[in-house]
Structure formats: C-alpha cells, structure tokens
C-alpha cells in the first residue's frame, strides 16, 4: 500500500486529505510542522509527499529543496499545495514534481497523485496486503 506524507499547518486540511486518501486505499501520515518533515521521511519512508508551501515557521519550497538534495529524496515525488496560485512558478524552481492550487476537490487531488503512484501499483499492492 502506497504511503503518502501530508504536511500542512492546518489540522482541518490534514484530516480531510487523510480521509480522502485512505478511502482510496492509500496510507496517510501527517505532519503539521516543517521541521518534522525530514524526520518523518526517514522513519516512515513515504512514497509521495504532499507539501503545503506556507507553513507556519518555514517555507515548503525550502523543505522541498532540501529533500531533493538527498539521495533518497530525489526519487520521492513532491507535490506542493498552496492557496497562492502565483507560487506555481517558484514551485518548479525548488524541484517539486507538481503543484496543486487550493481549493481542490478529491478528483483534482487523486488525479495528480495517480500521475506518480499509478493505479495499477496501488491495486496490486492492496491485493497483496
């Protein structure tokens, strides 16, 4: 089962996204602070990262840059999410794989995620479990 790490400082978003993803068969883990991200990537080894850009205390783009510098991080798909659509441009510069503008619905979210975690793998993995 694919594991997705969601990072956002808004608890409501964390819960809503988690539930939406779990319904689709993903395992969702969450972090609400920027500094927890690196740690969680190491301990939880997620398959994909959903990262809010404007986190209280830190900038998602900086975190993304740091992740993409590490050997394992290069392979980890990072999707930035933000309510500022203008951030889309700078999201490419920091090495993020994709950008999703808030507000989005479940359909938008799954469409982006499936680009990196194709349905087949998801299905086969859930069959195995």
């Amino acid at each position, binding site marked *: 089962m694919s594991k997705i790490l969601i990072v956002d400082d*808004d608890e*409501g*978003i964390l*819960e*809503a*996204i988690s*539930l*939406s993803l779990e*319904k689709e068969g993903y395992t969702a883990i969450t972090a609400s602070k920027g500094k927890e991200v690196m740690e969680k990537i190491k301990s939880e080894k997620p398959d994909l990262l959903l990262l809010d850009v*404007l986190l209280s205390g830190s900038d998602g783009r900086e975190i993304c840059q740091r992740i993409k510098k590490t050997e394992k991080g290069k392979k980890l798909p990072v999707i930035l999410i933000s*309510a*500022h659509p203008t951030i889309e441009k700078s999201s490419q510069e920091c090495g993020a794989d994709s950008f999703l503008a*808030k*507000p*989005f*619905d*479940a*359909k938008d*979210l799954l469409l982006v995620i499936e680009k990196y975690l194709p349905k087949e793998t998801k299905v086969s993995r859930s069959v195995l479990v």
Partner: protein
Amino acid sequence: MSKIIDYLNPVARLGKKRSVVVPLVLSFLTYLLSEIFAYYILKNPAQAGAYLVFLSAALVIYLSLRDGIAGGFIATLLTLAYYAYIIYSRDYLGEQFISAIEATVLLGLLYFSISLIIGFLKQKVDGLIERESNEKRRLQSIVQQLPVGVIITDAKGVVVQSNRKMEEILGEKIPLGYAYSKDEALLKSNHSEVTHTNSQPPLMHILNTGKSVLGKEFTVQRNDGKEVFVQISSTAIRNRKGDIFATASIIDDVSEKKETEKRKDDFVNMVSHELKTPLTSMKLYVDLLKNTVNKEDLKSARLIKGLKFQTDRLQKLVIDLLDVSRIQTGKLNFHKEEFLVDALIEETINELQQFAKKIKIIFKTRSGVKIYADRFRIYQVLTNLINNAIKFSPPDSKILVQNQKEGDDLLVSVQDFGAGIAKSQQKKIFERLYQIAEGEQRTFPGFGMGLYISKEIVIRHRGKIWVESEKDVGSTFYFTLPL
C-alpha cells in the same frame, strides 16, 4: 559702479520707486555746473543761452523719464528759476530783456508739456509693471501653497519656478535656471501601469511633441536614497502665435496611496488565502460524504448536491475577490493557447445546465474557429454571462448562446428572455462592484464582480463587451475576441 549706473538709468528704474530729491539735486547741480562753465570756460556768460536750451530740454526729458511727471516739473521749475537768475544777473535791457522773458515763457511751456507727456507715459509703464508683478506674486503665492509639486520651465527645459511641495517631494531644492535633461531622475520613465506608449520623460515628451502628459506614474530615486512614487501631468504653454514658450508640470506624491493600495491588496490576498484553506477541507469532506451515502437514499443525495453547489459558489466568490484585486494591481496574467471556441462553449453549457434544471441553455450557432486566448479566462467570461442569464431568466425559458465570425473578430453572444436591463444601467453593470439595486431585482446575489472581471478579461484580450437589452423582453450580452 553698475549700481550707480542702474540708479541713473531711467529704463532700469521703470517700475521702481520715483524720487523727488534726485530731480532737485540733479537740476541744481546741472545749472551750477552750467554757471561755472559760462563764467570760467566760455568766459562770456552772455552767450550761455544758445546751448542752454538743449541742456534744459535734455534734463527735463531725462528726469521726467526717470521720475515721472513730478521729476519733469521739478526740472522745469528749476530751469525757469535759473533762466530768471540769468536775466537778472546779466543785466538785459530793453528789447533784449523782453525777448529773453518771452523765450523763457515759451521754453517753460514747452518743458512743462514734455514733462507731462513723457512723465505720463513713464507712470503708465510703471503701473503696468506693478500690475504684472502683483499678478506674478499672486500666482507665485498660489503655486507655493499648492499641495502638489509644481515645476515650470521655459521652452528649453530650464526651471523658472518650482514650489515648496516640490522641494519636499524631491528632498532638495531645484535651483532656478537648472536645465532638465533626458538623464534626470525625475523625468526618467520607470515602468508604469498607466497606458502610455511613449516612455519618454514627460518634459522631453511635451517639448518634443507638444502633447500633454496626463497622470503618468514615475518612480523618483531621491539623492537621500528614498524612493518616491509620483504622478506627473505636464502640459506645454503656448503664446498667442501658438509657439511653446514654457511647460508646466504638476507632480503628485502618490507613495502613501500606493502604500495603502498595497496594504489593501495584501489584505485581500490574505483573506482569500485564509478562506481557501477551510474551503479545501470542505470540498474534500463533501466528496467523502457523497461516497458514504447509499445510492438509494435520494434525499441525502440531494442535500449533498446542494452542499456541493454552495461550496463551489463560495469558491467562485473567493476566486472572484482575488481576481478583482489582481485587476486593480495590474497583476491579472494570461496563459494563452490555441483552442476551439465551440468546444469550450459546449463544455461550459454542459456544466452550467446541471444547475439550471428549469432553463434550457441552447448552443444555437457554431463558428468552428480556433482562437488564441487564455482558455480558463474565456471560460470565466462565458460562465459569468451564462450564470447571469440564468439568474435573470424566468422558469421554463431558454438561453441562446451563439458564436460567429464577424470580420476579423469572433462574436459571442448570450441571450436571455428575462427581466432585461434599463438603459440607464446598461453601462454601469460593467463597473466594479455594481449591482442593480432596483425594486425586486435587489435580491439577486453576487458581489457584482462577475461582469467587471469579464470586461477586464475581454478588454485585455483586445476585445469588446457590451449589452443590448430591453426591459421585460430580455438581454443579449456580446463580446468579441480578435481572431
């Protein structure tokens, strides 16, 4: 030395204070010297009369020119006194005496007339100069107290006047006689949102073209490092022949206004950002909720559909709010691509038809053309127009959407058969935050942002947007896009 020359030069004294003492002293000295000259150089005082006529005439002309009628009269009186003294001291007798008296009287009359004429003219000129200088002072005092900066230059760009506020804006005094050139910071064009194809500095622009500059925005980099935003309006001043002899520029410090605008902009950005966060959660929850409900439970499904519709509406309002703010700060950006207009209209109609069960939206005419535009923004315009049409349509009526080639443009129209819009409102509805607030129509929702945003999108695509409408018959909204 030049001061003494100026003091004695009658032309330099024009418009200055007239004296009584100077004519008295000068006349007295002149005749004293004349007397000395007659006695010690000519050694024949009886001959004095011949040159004296010219000396007196010169003296009277000079003093009436320098000190007006009074100056001329004083000179004339002293002249007559001197002549009387000569007649008395030279012991003229008989016929000689009579002709001397006659000549004195005649010359006296002549000198008085000269004083009167020249003195009068001189005083008239003094009056004109005084009036002009008062006029200038009056203007100067107004210019000095204006709450905007003013720079007045001659036809070469040399400063002849500036005011206190200008000093305040620039943080330094502009010396009079200072010539502005193309490199001047004040005149150098920075970027400006105001549409002006000519980016020449305003002063250069008007001096070169004679055309005025109206409210163009510039950034002034002050010498003390401060940056000031100003709005400059410049105009050429022409003489009666139509030649430019001066320029006048009004410089308004808009830094504070800019700052307020920025703060408002930041606020709107922050608010819409804050609204988007819970909105995202809401949308996800609505989707989750939809999946938990049993397919047969039609009542719950309807409730959820209503919830979804309202959430989408809220989202549209938030996005509109952000768009209005972007339009005002000139940050509305387009991502243009080529696309088939018919397909976009079809898509939009299908989407909106779901929520307008009692109204039939008909795609009547297809153009089959492709245009190069921002697909999402044009979708926004279509959505706004069709949504408006739905809002104003009575139940069981239809909405006609058409698009066709019209010369070099694509013409799109959305026609409804609803309440219509009064003539007086037809232009205003495209203004920012304008809502028809008339009787029952008041109840129609929306912040009045849709048409304003649509207008901006169409105009920025170099198109036109307008409405033709008749009360109780219906309205047709048109917009064009260049092909």
